[in-house]
């Protein structure tokens, strides 16, 4: 059954969509039709509960309009694009189904899954690390997901599995930082301006608060404010070797704290 849908917003006005949003999961062109979108929005408007979204999806499935998650996701993107709630965000059960298909080698499902995971991971890491490091960590986690996809058990929830892998990669990065004894600071962190930077900073402060003051102080100076070891030693009144030791010990404790959380 071929679906023709028109590009429009919640008022039924036609809008211009980026080309990638006009493709369905098979790569065919999808045109959004006003009555359909009004129907979806009507259903969505009944509540913000995610369960209702998947009621829409199950209805679509019954009508034979959805064979893969892709179409619904694209609709979600369209609605997000015009400022509506992200009520089409895939839930855990859908991701679990996609992952089960991925384990059987379904590449189409994999494209959708990777896209959803990328978004989820970016949000996850943006609250925990410096914004400049988010992309690398998201990518590393996606590669880990790819390599360890056989360890996901389809009968269990997907997002805790993904979160556990993400946390492992995050802790691993902290450990590498600790071992590398880097003294360079990521410049973006010290000039935080946007919301994610602030959230990352708050998150780091919360962790640092759990360290002894001397360790937290030198980590803040060297790792966040970008001072050299010598400058930090001068300002803190600690010797240079002591500053290094405190940074080492502090980062090690931080890694342990993150692992425990």
């Amino acid at each position, binding site marked *: 059954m071929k679906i023709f849908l028109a590009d429009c917003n919640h008022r039924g006005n036609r809008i211009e969509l980026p080309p990638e949003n006009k493709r369905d999961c098979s790569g065919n062109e999808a045109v959004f039709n006003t009555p359909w979108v009004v129907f979806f929005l009507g259903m969505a408007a009944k509540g913000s509960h995610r369960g209702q979204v998947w009621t829409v999806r199950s209805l679509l499935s019954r009508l034979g309009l959805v064979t893969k998650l892709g179409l619904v996701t694209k609709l979600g993107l369209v609605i997000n694009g015009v400022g509506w709630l992200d009520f089409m965000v895939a839930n855990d059960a859908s991701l679990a189904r996609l992952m089960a298909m*991925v*384990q059987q080698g379904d590449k189409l499902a*994999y*494209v959708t899954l990777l896209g959803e995971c990328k978004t989820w991971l970016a949000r996850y890491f943006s609250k925990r690390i410096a914004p400049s490091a988010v992309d690398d960590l998201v990518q*590393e986690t996606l590669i880990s997901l790819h390599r360890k996809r056989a360890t996901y*058990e389809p009968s*269990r929830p997907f997002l805790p599995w993904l979160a556990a892998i993400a*946390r492992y990669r995050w802790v691993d990065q902290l450990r590498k930082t600790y071992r590398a004894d880097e003294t360079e600071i990521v410049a973006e962190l010290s000039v935080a301006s946007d919301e994610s930077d602030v959230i990352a900073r708050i998150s780091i402060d919360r962790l640092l608060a759990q360290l002894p003051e001397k360790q937290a102080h030198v980590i803040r100076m060297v790792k966040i404010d970008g001072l050299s070891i010598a400058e930090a030693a001068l300002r803190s009144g600690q010797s240079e070797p002591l500053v290094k030791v405190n940074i080492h010990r502090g980062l090690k404790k931080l890694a342990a704290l993150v692992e425990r959380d």
Partner: protein
Amino acid sequence: MVQIDMSTLVDDLTPVRVVKRGDSVFLAVGATFIASVMVAVIYGMRSDLMSGDPHPIVIIRASLLSLLGLATTLAVSSVAHPSIGKPQNGWVWALAAAAVLPLAAIAKFAYLYASGQPFDIFMQDFEFGPRCLLISGFSAVWIASFMTWWLRRGAPIALNRAGWLVGIAAGSFGTFSFNVYCNSISIFYIGFWYSLAVTLCAIAGRLIVPRLIRW
């Protein structure tokens, strides 16, 4: 880091067989069975085991060791699957149950010491202890190698915990294998040497295994 496009991952996608939790138990129990047979073939088997009427203390120590080995192996299988939430801690109870052996030895030792009785019974069979460590240790290495191989296929996220668990599981099963041959039924011997073997294996597991399973 090297940037990898998502399409590369998609192109590389092949069907995979899900890593099942039961596989680790199957591997560990299989390796223990082979180790026990090897011990019996090389060193011989206890005569009461051969006759099918083992001494009660042999049954007790074998039960405790196999229970501890199974519980920790199940915990190892859980560690290999990433998840967030309460970890599987059933093995702690099995460990507590197995601690009865060294505690009984300490209690008996304290009683003999307090009552001024001779320690002859304490020293009985004691010279065979290093042999216990050696045979249990070799068996444990054999069993741990399978468990580590299996863990490498999984995605353990708590490496130190995995190391401890592999060490305890392999130590318990390794000592269980030795138990097939061990002639002693002295509580001092069992409480000291068996416990020492499991403890050393646990420490070795903690020190070695995390390096092998990091991903």
